[in-house]
């Protein structure tokens, strides 16, 4: 009875609990964390603590808990999902592969950590995201040249990765100095999926194979084609992080020092904490989420938007772009925002000038081709959510009375006509009254 009562009071709150990242209400976000062993909650607590300190409500559940579910009554209960359950063959409750894909398709974020002996389910989820893990279940990424020197771990499967993607928006503006420790399985990116990106790649000497069996055939994954950590930003701006190692999120790796083989510098602390925290900021839209507002265009010297332009008009276009910083919308500063004046193909493509306060503007002349044009702002940059604005506007030709009159080149014609008329007038008089 009391449960029912509680439930009834919660119903009106549901719409607030279960939105994906929306520009209107971006804060207060709930994340479901699924484990296959509850001990992970403690052994990976630094990672969770960094999320909680940034205002995320984490809901820790065992992956086979029969009560878990992503949505109830058609509403999503969570904004993000963290799968730290590499060996789970089936989820409990109503969660399955399709439920997770629907969750992502509705714009929610996902973090998947696989590990050796990753289950088919986790592999399938990854495959749907354009990430193919090594099919050999016992394979580990091994690197005999760029491994992390350890007194106790001698099989060179503990990698010191420092081949990061070059993107400040994904990894933060502060450079990651220390290498990132990685121990797990490698994956390759599907060449047909161009949304998925390698964030951390293996070094050219790496390969993915079972360290305990002799190699007779070349391994399917070698060299820097191996991706250790990948991200994907779907077309609906849902973001996904896929890592081949669960232990890279652990407190042990966060705290551990690292020295790369062949390099004399020893770092007191591995780059894992910085790397994964910055990545989680990206995944949960605390960085790189853009919104464009206040799109305006008008004729030069006017203020109101016309219903139609004439060819050869001078026009001004402006837009304001903001980036979500985790707490508020900050002006977005870039110098490569471009607008297109588009009909079947761009007639004008111009880079917008900016006042560094989020206001972008430009001016250009309407082409001398008439038809239905669009102002198109397609902003797709590495790591940022894509902005796609388009506004339709017709362009008409000159009206008949808008052409130039009294062209000097036509003076002989005018002269001829008028002298003819004058001649005619005189001729009528002379013809009629001459005697």
């Amino acid at each position, binding site marked *: 009875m009391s449960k029912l009562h509680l439930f009834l009071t919660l119903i009106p709150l549901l719409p607030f609990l279960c939105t994906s990242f929306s520009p209107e209400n971006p804060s207060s976000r709930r994340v479901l964390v699924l484990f296959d062993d509850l001990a992970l909650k403690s052994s990976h607590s630094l990672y969770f603590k960094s999320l909680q300190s940034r205002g995320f409500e984490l809901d820790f559940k065992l992956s086979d808990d029969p009560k878990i579910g992503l949505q109830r009554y058609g509403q999503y209960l969570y904004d993000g999902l963290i799968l730290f359950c590499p060996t789970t063959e089936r989820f409990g409750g109503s969660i399955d592969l399709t439920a997770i894909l629907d969750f992502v398709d509705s714009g929610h974020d996902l973090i998947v950590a696989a590990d050796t002996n990753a289950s088919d389910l986790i592999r399938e989820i990854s495959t749907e995201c354009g990430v193919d893990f090594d099919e050999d279940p016992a394979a580990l990424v091994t690197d005999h040249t760029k491994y992390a020197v350890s007194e106790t771990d001698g099989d060179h499967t503990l990698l010191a990765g420092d081949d990061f993607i070059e993107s400040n928006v994904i990894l933060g503006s502060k450079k990651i100095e220390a290498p990132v420790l990685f121990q797990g399985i490698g994956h390759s990116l599907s060449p047909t999926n161009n949304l998925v990106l390698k964030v951390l790649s293996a070094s050219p000497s790496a390969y993915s194979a079972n360290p305990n069996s002799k190699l007779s055939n070349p391994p399917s994954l070698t060299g820097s084609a191996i991706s250790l950590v990948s991200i994907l930003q779907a077309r609906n701006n849902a973001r996904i992080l896929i890592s081949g190692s669960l232990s890279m999120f652990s407190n042990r790796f966060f705290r551990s020092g690292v020295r790369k083989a062949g390099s004399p510098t020893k770092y007191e602390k591995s780059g894992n904490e910085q790397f994964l925290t910055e990545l989680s900021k990206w995944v949960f839209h605390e960085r790189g989420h853009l919104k464009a507002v206040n799109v305006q265009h008008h004729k030069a010297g006017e203020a109101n938007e016309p219903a139609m332009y004439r060819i050869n008009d001078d026009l001004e276009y402006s837009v304001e772009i903001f980036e979500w910083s985790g707490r508020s919308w900050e002006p977005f500063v870039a110098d490569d925002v471009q607008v297109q004046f588009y009909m079947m193909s761009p007639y004008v493509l111009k880079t917008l000038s900016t006042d560094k306060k989020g206001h972008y503007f430009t001016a250009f002349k309407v082409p001398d081709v008439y038809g239905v044009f669009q102002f198109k702002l397609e902003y797709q940059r590495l790591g940022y959510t894509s902005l796609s604005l388009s506004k339709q506007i017709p362009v008409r030709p000159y009206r008949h009375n808008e052409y130039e009159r009294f062209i000097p080149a036509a003076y002989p*014609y005018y002269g001829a006509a008028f002298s003819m008329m004058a001649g005619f007038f005189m001729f009528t008089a002379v013809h009629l009254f*001459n005697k």
Partner: protein
Amino acid sequence: MARNLVGSLVLVLAISLCEAASIFQPISESHRSAALELFTPADGSFGSLEETYEALRTFGILGIQKKPDIGTGSCQSVSETLESSSSTTKDLFFALKVNSILECKIDEAIFQDITSRLKAVVNDGNSLLDFYYSISSLVLIKDQNSRVDVLLGDADGIFRSIKALSQSDGRWRYSSSNPESSTYAAGLALEALAGVISLASSEIDHSLIVTLKNDIVKLFDSIEKYDDGSFYFDEKLVDAREHHGPLSTTSAVIRGLTAFASVTSGTINLSGNKILGLAKFFLGIGIPGNSKDFFNQIDSLACLESNRVSVPLILSLPATVLSLTKKDQLKVKVDTVLGSSAPPLTVKLMQAFISGSKDSSVIETQELRFDPENAVHLLDVLPKSVDVGNYIFVFEIVLHDSVDKKVYTTGGQTQVPLFVTGVIKTDNAEIAVLDSDLGSIETQKKLDLAGETSVSLSANHLQKLRLSFQLTTPRGKFFKPHQVFLKLRHETEVEHIFVVGNSGKQFEIILDFLGLVEKFFYLSGQYDIQLTVGDAVMENSILRAVGHVELDLPEAPEKAPHPPARPVDPYSRYGPKAEITHIFRAPEKRPPKELSLAFLGLTLLPFVGFLIGLLHIGVNLKNFPTSAVPVTFAILFHLGIAAVLLLYALFWLKWDLFTTLKTLGFLGAFLMFVGHRTLSHLASTSAKLKSA
């Protein structure tokens, strides 16, 4: 009894010998720094007395000196809790726990008061938690103030009523009304019962203690095991009010067990292996991330460190990667779980075998030399028979003192995986292009795999490429690394990887390009050759660009496979596009204005000529009517014509067609009329003339 125990222990370990081994390190400095990080007081105090106790106890066990100063604030809340009559037994329990560490000044009267309250709870308690908190509190009061009478009169009765909650499998229920049994509760019950024994005014019935010992043995039958040899307890029921994870459950059982063992005489028949396994469980979790888990880990290890059942000794190796080239020494440390030194003992290296193979031991049993300065056991030089490779070394701890054998558990033989690494020498590396049919050598080049030289070769599809080299270990044996790849990379980044096989004593690969043309997608051009040789035990793994080979392959037939699509470079895909500006239609070319004006003049010339012509032929207007009416019509007619011409000019200048036509209509009718009158007048005058 103890001898039996050791005997069975050795037997169990001999069986478990073939399992995967892993090393556990005792508590070290990293735990101390983590403790200071985890237990940081906010505003000079921890949240509750429970947290305060956990922090203080952890600092105490780890021997942290520069702990945060929380003494005065905590003492105040301790005395407030103790004085308040509304505090629950749980509050009192934690207040007393904090007080046992801080030793605040508390009046004896307060103790008296609490004691009587607690005794009342004990006597009519029916839930396990009531018993646990009140009895434990009484034990704490007994330690803190010897003058207060805390002894329980009816200890046997209390013992029985707690015991009544136990289940047949060694677990306990929280209360008689709750049928679900819990392992965590068993731990609490054991601690409470230990408290009853220590508080008993008279000796507890011996048979009760014997049954309880059997219960403990039964409880330990439900222990669970990880593959690495660590043991733990887990709560079976998940739906309990408060779910306890394996860590807190195991911790509760250990606290109960050690408390019980410290107050009873005689041994509890528990395998030392399980105690060691429990210690391994706590060490195996590393550094927990939350303070509760951290406290449970450290507190349980402290309980194990000084327990009366058997104290586990942990054998650990500071380094398990030993370099043959650098002549690393094999070092073994034996410590208690908290890292304090062990009693006098000898570590014996029993066996060593190559991992993965079931061959016999490569070395003979030998004792390690003890270095008292660093408290490590050393093997100065690895035996000659140990070459590079992965080994499993088997150690055994032999305690010197026979009394120690009863106190400590060593786990018998311990297996440790070891990596013996070394610098591998490469010899006779050469690369050659062979003619296919004859096998004769076309070009042959020596390679220095350590150096920086690069070769350039050329071959066609009828030839072969041969690469060969030898690898030898520091002990002069032939070495087979795990990773020996030859990679050919075309200019278009199409890669082909080959595993270099070994035949007897040397690595050799022969690439017959005739058979490979299809695999190479008929792509002629320059291929970079890269050789990768690596192994876990090879200190100088090679990743080297050997050079390049210029391949001349035949033209691709029509149905040849195409090279796979290359992934798009993300940096170029997302870059800004090139700007596009519209090219406007150029305005038509026009003549200069002067030319137009000149032609305007030319067009006016005929008019001028016309006027001159008129004057020349001497035109006159003599035929103009003279009478009034025809004059009017003639003037109107010509005005009408002028108006039509003006209308044309107006049409040209500003009017549109409709206005013009409308006006023209009126003007036309008017002109028709006046024209007709004028013309008929002119016709009549000319007719008169003719007739005249």
